[in-house]
């Protein structure tokens, strides 16, 4: 089959590779019909996370048709059109039973690396390098899906690939950030990052009853999407003094909930941005916590901050004093979306959540390196590139 592989820092190619096959009784093979780029892929592609092996297949946000099932699969059958959660979950361990499926105990074969980096082992994920098990990704014609009964969900009749594919990751990640932050009617919510996850977090906050939701970014096309498709307000941090703006729009209090959906490659026009970039370029820090700092400062006293952006190691200048003295609640997680996916598919079908506008660039898998180039450099208004194997 053909697949998009990582060949070294910022080097991608579409190559011919072996087809996947069933390895375990709960597996299925899915013929991929749509697979999208994600901001967290850029951390892998750019070498920020030294867990990729040249030749690894990228991609974790996808959907397709089941073409083969293992002997213990009971809920899915050949021909089912499914969207698959980017994290693998056994559904039986204590974490899965608590809904914390990204922390599944039984889907990751790399405990040594995880325990050294994080102090515990997280669940397996498609196409995300060795810390999540080293599983092949979805930017390919076919992908092996372990525990398909738990991780795949039937796509409702009439829903397009462009609508459904984001339920694999961006939509449940955004929902989790808003819902698990405890957003309630009347809250003022700020979201850092107007990419797919940030937009979905903002829409979720509105659906949960927030009185005002503002999304912070600097890319005009993305901010326009927020206004046109999400129904939230926007702030361009390059054109305004962010913290006073947040105070003003929250009645001088600070925002009740601050959701960070940027991740370790954060950008800032200020001195802190220069400092963070210097540290990561010199390999003195692995991640740039610029947006995290802003979120902590922007939250009201006693407010909640949720980190949705991906971080992999250690950061400098984390405002511990702000967190402690303001009495903030800090939450963070990889995506635990299995429990939310059926409900989110229904909301999309009812028109409550728009997703297809995120797929600004649709192209054959053979053009995926160009798609990532557009996506990485945010050219031509690219929000997400959708690949059709």
């Amino acid at each position, binding site marked *: 089959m053909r697949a998009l*592989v990582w060949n070294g820092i910022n080097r991608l190619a579409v190559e011919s590779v072996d087809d996947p096959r069933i390895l*375990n009784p709960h597996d299925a093979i899915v013929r991929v019909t749509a697979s999208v780029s994600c901001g967290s892929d850029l951390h892998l592609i750019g070498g920020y996370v*030294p867990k990729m092996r*040249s030749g690894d297949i990228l991609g974790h946000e996808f959907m397709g048709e089941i073409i083969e099932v293992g002997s213990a699969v009971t809920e899915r059958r050949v021909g089912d059109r499914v969207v698959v959660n980017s994290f693998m979950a056994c559904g039986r361990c*204590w974490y899965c039973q608590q809904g914390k499926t990204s922390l599944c105990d039984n889907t*990751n*074969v790399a405990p*040594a690396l995880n325990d050294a980096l994080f102090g515990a082992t997280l669940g397996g994920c498609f196409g995300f390098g060795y810390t999540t098990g*080293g599983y092949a990704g979805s930017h390919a014609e076919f992908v092996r899906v372990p*525990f398909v009964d738990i991780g795949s969900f039937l796509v409702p009749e009439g829903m397009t690939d462009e609508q459904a594919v984001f339920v694999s990751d961006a939509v449940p990640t955004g929902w989790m950030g808003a819902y698990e932050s405890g957003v309630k009617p009347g809250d003022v919510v700020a979201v850092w990052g107007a990419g797919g996850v940030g937009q979905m977090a903002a829409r979720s906050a509105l659906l949960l009853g927030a009185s005002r939701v503002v999304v912070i970014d600097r890319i005009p096309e993305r901010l326009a999407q927020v206004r046109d498709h999400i129904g939230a307000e926007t702030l361009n941090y390059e054109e305004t003094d962010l913290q006073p703006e947040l105070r003003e729009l929250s009645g001088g209090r600070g925002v009740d909930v601050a959701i960070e959906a940027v991740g370790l490659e954060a950008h800032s026009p200020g001195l802190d941005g220069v400092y963070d970039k210097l540290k990561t370029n010199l390999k003195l820090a692995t991640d740039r916590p610029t947006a995290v700092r802003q979120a902590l400062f922007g939250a009201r006293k006693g407010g909640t901050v949720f980190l949705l952006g991906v971080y992999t190691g250690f950061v400098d200048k984390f405002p511990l004093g702000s967190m402690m003295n303001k009495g903030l609640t800090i939450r963070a997680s990889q995506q635990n979306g299995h429990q939310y996916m059926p409900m989110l598919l229904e909301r999309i079908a009812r028109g409550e959540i728009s997703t297809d506008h995120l797929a600004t660039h649709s192209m054959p898998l053979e053009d995926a390196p160009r798609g990532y180039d557009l996506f990485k450099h945010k050219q031509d208004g690219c929000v997400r590139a959708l690949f059709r194997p």
Partner: protein
Amino acid sequence: MSKRIVVAASGASVAAAAILILRNRARMTQPEPRDERTRWRVVTISRPRADLDELPAPLAALGPYVETELRDAPGDRGTELRARLLPGGTHTPDDLRVALRHSKQLLEAGEVAVVHPTPHGRRRMTPQGIALDVIAAVSEGKGVL
């Protein structure tokens, strides 16, 4: 003896005493080093104890030089499966860690997670790639357990 020397000598004595006290306290409060090879290693299985009557196959395969024990986990979290190597056997802590992890996977998920053979493109022999291959090869037997 000048006043300056007296003060300096007193300061040195206080410092030496403080170091001795701290070292003694550290000795008293630190436990004896444990034998890493034979210490207990534990996983929690999210199943009731009644479901764990038989020794799981991966642990049974290690033979007689392994001692096992079951305990109810607190908070309805299932059962703690404890195991340790006994003197005389040839198995290593890595073997025991793998056996415990595989036992948990079999009992909870019904299968042991596998990745390989996995499709991939051309593998280049880079330092990072070689290091990752080495880590991946031994990973299941390492980690905190």
